[in-house]
């Protein structure tokens, strides 16, 4: 049951010139959210751009007494709406429709949880990490960014007992932590090669080529994967058919499936990728 509420901005912490964490007073959304779900967002009173924008719920926020008080978004400036969100100040109001979509399915020990995040693809993993840590599932975050300055919230994950495997494209490293130069798939593949007998569930969110590579690696090493895709979404509720991705069950023909209601999280083995698909419905 999604709700639509006018959420007041509690804080908007600028992490860099592109990233901010927007905290919103939205207890109704926070209480309902499962890891991997998203909301459709729009600053109140804004008619240009016309449509809402999809955002993963980043954190579920709690007040001093532990009650759920709201949510936060990890916002990266990409265009007009994300710039507006970046510029919001406490007291401004944002319309939040959600939570929406199919969440991640958490796993439990002895299966390990490997979360693979590229850039702003970190967003759905904060709530997943909370859940995994509550379940006591051994978990690793493979997290890649362009520079060390764009690796955020590392302590958040460490505090929840998540092992970090960091990469940067330029080889820079965040202070006091090991970090490998290159793509996030490098440490992931190393881990896959030495996976224990119980195996691991690979969770991924990030740029499309990364998702394709991660799903491919997981398949190659016979591990299951859950991949969160990003499509242009007009409505988030299954109304407009703008957000389709090609999905294939077993030997069936690929079908174009609405990622807002059948996703955004899909079984990585069932997604059809550009390089393997025959064209129609190619993202």
């Amino acid at each position: 049951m999604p709700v639509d509420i006018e959420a007041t901005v509690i804080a908007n912490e600028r992490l860099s010139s592109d990233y901010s964490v927007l905290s919103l007073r939205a207890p109704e959304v926070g209480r309902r959210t499962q890891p991997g779900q998203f909301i459709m967002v729009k600053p109140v009173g804004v008619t240009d751009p016309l449509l809402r924008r999809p955002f993963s719920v980043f954190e579920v926020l709690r007040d001093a007494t532990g009650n759920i008080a709201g949510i936060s978004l990890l916002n990266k400036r990409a265009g007009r709406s994300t710039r507006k969100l970046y510029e919001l100040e406490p007291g401004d109001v944002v319309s939040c429709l959600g939570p929406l979509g199919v969440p991640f399915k958490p796993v439990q020990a002895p299966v390990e949880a490997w979360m693979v995040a590229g850039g702003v693809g970190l967003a759905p993993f904060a709530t997943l990490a909370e859940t995994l840590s509550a379940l006591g599932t051994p978990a690793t975050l493979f997290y890649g960014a362009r520079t060390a300055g764009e690796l955020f919230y590392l302590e958040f994950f460490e505090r929840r007992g998540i092992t970090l495997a960091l990469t940067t494209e330029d080889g820079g490293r965040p202070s006091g932590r090991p970090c490998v130069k290159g793509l996030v798939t490098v440490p992931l593949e190393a881990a896959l090669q030495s996976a224990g007998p119980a195996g691991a569930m690979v969770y991924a969110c990030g740029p499309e080529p990364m998702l394709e590579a991660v799903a491919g690696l997981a398949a190659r090493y016979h591990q299951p994967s859950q991949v969160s895709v990003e499509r242009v979404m007009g409505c988030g509720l299954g109304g407009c058919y703008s957000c389709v991705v090609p999905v294939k069950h077993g030997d069936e023909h690929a079908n174009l499936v609405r990622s807002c209601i059948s996703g955004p999280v899909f079984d990585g083995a069932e997604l059809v990728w550009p390089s393997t698909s025959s064209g129609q419905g190619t993202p």
Partner: protein
Amino acid sequence: MTPDLSVKLGALTLPNPLIAASGCFGYGLEYEQVVDLSSLGGIVSKGLFMKERQGHPPPRIVETPAGMINAIGLQGIGVHRFVNEKLPLLRRAGARTFVNVCGTTLDEYVEVCKVLSDAEGVAAIELNISCPNIKEGGIQFGCSLDGTYHVVSAVKKATHLPVIPKLTPNVTDVASFARAAEDAGADAISLVNTFLAMAIDVETRRPRITNVLGGLSGPAIRPIAVRMVWECYQLVKIPIIGMGGITDARDAIEFMLAGAAAVQIGTQNFVDPFIWSKVIDGMQDYMKRHNVARISELVGTFDPAPPRAVHA
């Protein structure tokens, strides 16, 4: 006394004039979690052919000033699956279901309508002869007066259901198409479908949507759509279902004053899926302020005399 929002569309009576527009409300069931489907005047299904269709490759939508272009390409599950999988649930939800019918040939229109005539729970057929996004989507019927006449007559012969052709705005004289539809026995008309449009990514010189061309909807088109409803209202007697960029009660009432007996909301439903009760509240408020007992009294009461003085 609460104002009476009910309206008549020929033989149909709807509890209020607000209908969810085709292609903007899935098959209706997607919206059950946010809105009581029986509280709407009606819902129009996504366009349906005989067979399933995959539609166009994404990206399928792009925003434009106060509007959006879409080229979904009529992805759909086909009429048989619709009748079997969706219609029973829609009936149970109390929805008044209009089915948007597509066809690549006149025969296909007739066949789809026959299937629907045999099903239970279809309020009316909205005949989509106006989808701008696919070559074989009936637009060849919708852009010719003869084509419009023929497809409407053929379908009328094949079904007892009310037949409501949906007209394209991409013509010189939309009212003549309304007349052709009326002459062919249409029970009502819907207008407008989207305006053929395109957008270019100047950085790549490529289209913003894969199909290059798509249909423009949203507030941007409202002033043109209102004009078309008014033109048709002056020429035909059958009821008009008006749409194009409705965002609130004011906009809906504007269409009714111009001659629409009922209205559809498409794009704004994406912006605010909870819009329906807000528009109903806004309409009741307007009726109280203006002492209007029945919303149907408003239809076509636009007065083309010069505006009252701007300054009180």
